[in-house]
């Protein structure tokens, strides 16, 4: 045993803490903007209409900002603070720490710029385009490298539970992010997913679900295991339970992804697998929740006096609710009602605003007085923030649960004669208006609370003294030779054979994947389904506009095999219909109707008018107007490359088709333009075919008119009668 002087890096913690607060408020304001657009669509979407702030582009900006900027920086704040103290050592490398910080902020800034510009891969929580994907992977490795190396030079033999959670976070997020981001670049800011259709959907939700599990849950559980005992000054209720539930949680979580695709074209056995593991998740999740709450057993008087603990209690309660609700939502019978509705949105906000938000706030109120060696500027302001935030969560979520439940029921309501009670989708949307307004109000006061915190913490910082390094004396219980600096990094790893093995496995995993995936993905895409043909060049360009404008945020393309769905939309979706979809566009939310069978339902001119001004064509619609796509010329300069990239991915365009594509595109565009002119001529006779044929809107219309038409050629009626007779 020897006493050593250690300097903890407090500056990196301060940097990340400021970034968390800043991006948190920004991300919430973007969310408020999106909420206002749904609540007051005329004013906020059209009157203030501006393509960079259009709902379809703003929504992914909100989700990315709150997940990766707010929670991401929150993770780093807590990890950098707690790791040093738990392992009794400074972070292994200052260079890596600050590279991690500035790199991450740069990624966020690039997201803030590219998402409103419409550069998106359309895959939820993975919208950022390929150069940014690479940057994320690099920064994540920087973070993990620094963390693992710190672990190797630790001065405490025992690795506290919290750190196990951090390690699992690092390893899993790295693997998921890399696998989901396989995409072939078309140009600097455009790529096509390596996978197509069902496969793309499966990989995406394997990622999507685990992003929730390993970005929003495990790291925050780690933070909970450090900050709750510290704030309460009591040991965790059961350390043994923390170990058991950690291992159970990480083993089960990675299998639950398919519950996002219930009743979709995913094979049934995969859906069932997802459901079983989702139900099992209740046990380890509640293990964590109870462990946190029971830590306060016999110390509830402290909760009364401490704003920090109040935040933690609500965070843990919200975590418990969300992790009970999640498994319930993954039951098929419940899912058929709630999926595609605002229920899902309410569910994620219980977790987001409650679990992540409140835990972050509590952590900040704990950290600032520690970092600045001063009392919190205003305890009563912190208490006010707590009550405002709690009220905000309630006002946000209850209306949205109500909205989701109502809309789900309206969708499946039948009259006695077997017809749909609400055949017009729009009636089920306009019914939600009061809920959208109430939700906006809830969000607004939640933000006011966050602003109070910002003020309170800045005041605290100003009144205190900050030292970049906290100098402490620690007793080292580890005999191993130790040095913070001046050693090649690989030496440190090589000294521990087991660690070396782990690192090698990760490297092999990535390397192997790069070789296997393309072959497999391409091979299965070649499977021929005779009716399903690749998109025409114009449809392909239209599809890319659909992706750019974020249409998938509100429109699903997946008719579930449920009677109320087939009655409303037509034949249910088959896996074989999506083989050329790079990426898949099934969507997860129906703010507008499903579009899987949209092709041929309405005239070209209806779409033309509707896209420019939806409210004139379907009164009461909350869809944003897209006047700019009728004005801007279609950019076909990347068409050849797009065709070649897709050919490389197994889409069977004829050899050398890239040279022919533009001619075909122009011809199809003129046809659609002529259709539109024919219908419009009564009102506006001066518009020529050549005026509109080269506009983006024509491409988008061609895509919409193509949707679902391949399968319509199949004699669906015969199939239906067969099913009906077999039921009798």
């Amino acid at each position: 045993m020897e006493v050593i002087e250690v300097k903890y890096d407090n500056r990196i913690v301060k940097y990340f803490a400021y970034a968390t607060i800043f991006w948190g408020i920004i991300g919430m304001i973007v969310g408020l903007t999106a909420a206002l657009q749904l609540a007051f669509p005329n004013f906020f979407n059209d009157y203030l209409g501006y393509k960079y702030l259009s709902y379809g582009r703003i929504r992914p900006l909100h989700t990315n900002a709150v997940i990766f900027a707010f929670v991401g920086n929150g993770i780093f704040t807590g990890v950098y603070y707690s790791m040093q103290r738990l392992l009794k050592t400074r972070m292994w490398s200052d260079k890596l720490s600050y590279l991690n910080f500035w790199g991450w902020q740069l990624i966020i800034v690039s997201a803030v710029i590219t998402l409103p510009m419409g550069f998106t891969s359309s895959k939820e929580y993975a919208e950022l385009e390929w150069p940014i994907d690479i940057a994320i992977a690099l920064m994540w490795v920087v973070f993990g490298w620094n963390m693992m190396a710190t672990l190797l030079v630790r001065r405490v033999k025992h690795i506290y539970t919290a750190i196990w959670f951090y390690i699992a976070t690092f390893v899993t997020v790295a693997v998921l992010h890399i696998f989901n981001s396989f995409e072939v670049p078309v140009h600097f800011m455009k790529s096509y997913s390596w996978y197509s259709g069902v496969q793309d959907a499966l990989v995406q939700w394997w990622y999507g679900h685990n992003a929730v599990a390993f970005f929003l849950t495990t790291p925050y559980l780690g933070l909970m295991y450090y900050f709750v005992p510290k704030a309460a000054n009591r040991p965790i209720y059961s350390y043994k339970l923390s170990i058991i539930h950690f291992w159970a949680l990480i083993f089960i979580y990675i299998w639950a992804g398919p519950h996002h695709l219930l009743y979709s074209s995913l094979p049934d056995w995969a859906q069932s697998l997802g459901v079983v593991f989702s139900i099992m998740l209740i046990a380890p999740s509640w293990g964590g929740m109870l462990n946190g709450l029971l830590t306060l057993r016999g110390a509830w008087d402290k909760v009364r006096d401490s704003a920090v603990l109040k935040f933690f209690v609500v965070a843990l309660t919200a975590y418990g609710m969300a992790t009970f609700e999640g498994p319930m939502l993954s039951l098929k019978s419940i899912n058929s009602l709630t999926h595609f509705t605002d229920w899902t949105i309410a569910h994620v906000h219980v977790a987001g605003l409650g679990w992540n938000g409140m835990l972050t706030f509590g952590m900040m109120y704990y950290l600032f007085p520690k970092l600045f060696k001063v009392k919190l500027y205003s305890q009563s302001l912190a208490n006010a923030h707590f009550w405002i935030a709690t009220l905000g969560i309630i006002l946000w979520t209850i209306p949205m649960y109500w909205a989701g439940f109502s809309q789900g029921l309206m969708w499946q309501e039948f009259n006695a004669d077997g017809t749909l009670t609400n055949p017009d989708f729009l009636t089920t949307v306009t019914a939600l208006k009061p809920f959208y307004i109430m939700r906006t109000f809830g969000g607004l006061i939640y933000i006011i609370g966050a602003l109070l915190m910002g003020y309170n913490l800045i005041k605290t910082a100003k009144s205190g003294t900050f030292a970049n390094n906290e100098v402490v004396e620690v007793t080292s219980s580890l005999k191993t030779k130790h040095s913070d600096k001046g050693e090649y990094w690989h030496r440190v790893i090589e000294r521990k054979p087991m660690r070396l093995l782990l690192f090698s496995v990760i490297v092999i995993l990535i390397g192997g994947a790069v070789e296997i995936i393309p072959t497999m993905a391409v091979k299965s895409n070649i499977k021929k389904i005779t009716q399903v043909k690749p998109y025409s060049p114009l449809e392909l360009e239209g599809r890319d506009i659909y992706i750019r404008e974020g249409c998938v945020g509100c429109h699903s393309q997946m008719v579930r095999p449920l009677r109320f769905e087939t009655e409303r939309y037509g034949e249910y979706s088959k896996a074989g219909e999506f083989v050329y979809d790079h990426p898949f566009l099934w969507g997860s939310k129906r703010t507008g109707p499903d579009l899987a069978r949209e092709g041929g339902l309405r005239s070209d001119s209806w779409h033309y008018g509707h896209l420019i001004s939806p409210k004139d064509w379907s009164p009461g619609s909350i869809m944003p107007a897209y006047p700019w796509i009728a004005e801007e010329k279609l950019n076909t300069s990347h068409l050849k490359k797009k065709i070649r990239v897709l050919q490389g991915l197994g889409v069977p365009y004829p050899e050398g088709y890239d040279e022919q594509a533009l001619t075909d595109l122009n011809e199809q565009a003129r046809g659609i333009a002529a259709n539109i002119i024919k219908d419009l001529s009564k009102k506006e006779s001066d518009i020529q075919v050549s005026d509109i044929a080269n506009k983006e809107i024509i491409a988008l219309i061609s895509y919409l008119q193509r949707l679902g038409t391949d399968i319509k050629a199949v004699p669906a009626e015969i199939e239906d009668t067969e099913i009906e007779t077999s039921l009798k």
Partner: protein
Amino acid sequence: MEIIYVMLVVSLILALLFLVSFIWANKSGQYEDDVTPGIRILYDDEVKEKVEAKPNEKSNKE
């Protein structure tokens, strides 16, 4: 649906990785004591009363 096999393999390797770390943790005695680690984190390190930087000082040379 070949992608399922890739994902199964990747998920299994991940699970295996976790399993290996679990076995390592057990064998190396990480879990021999399941009481004191929870208590130990509550003790703050002894701070040396030597403040290195002045408040709001930007530069940090080490």
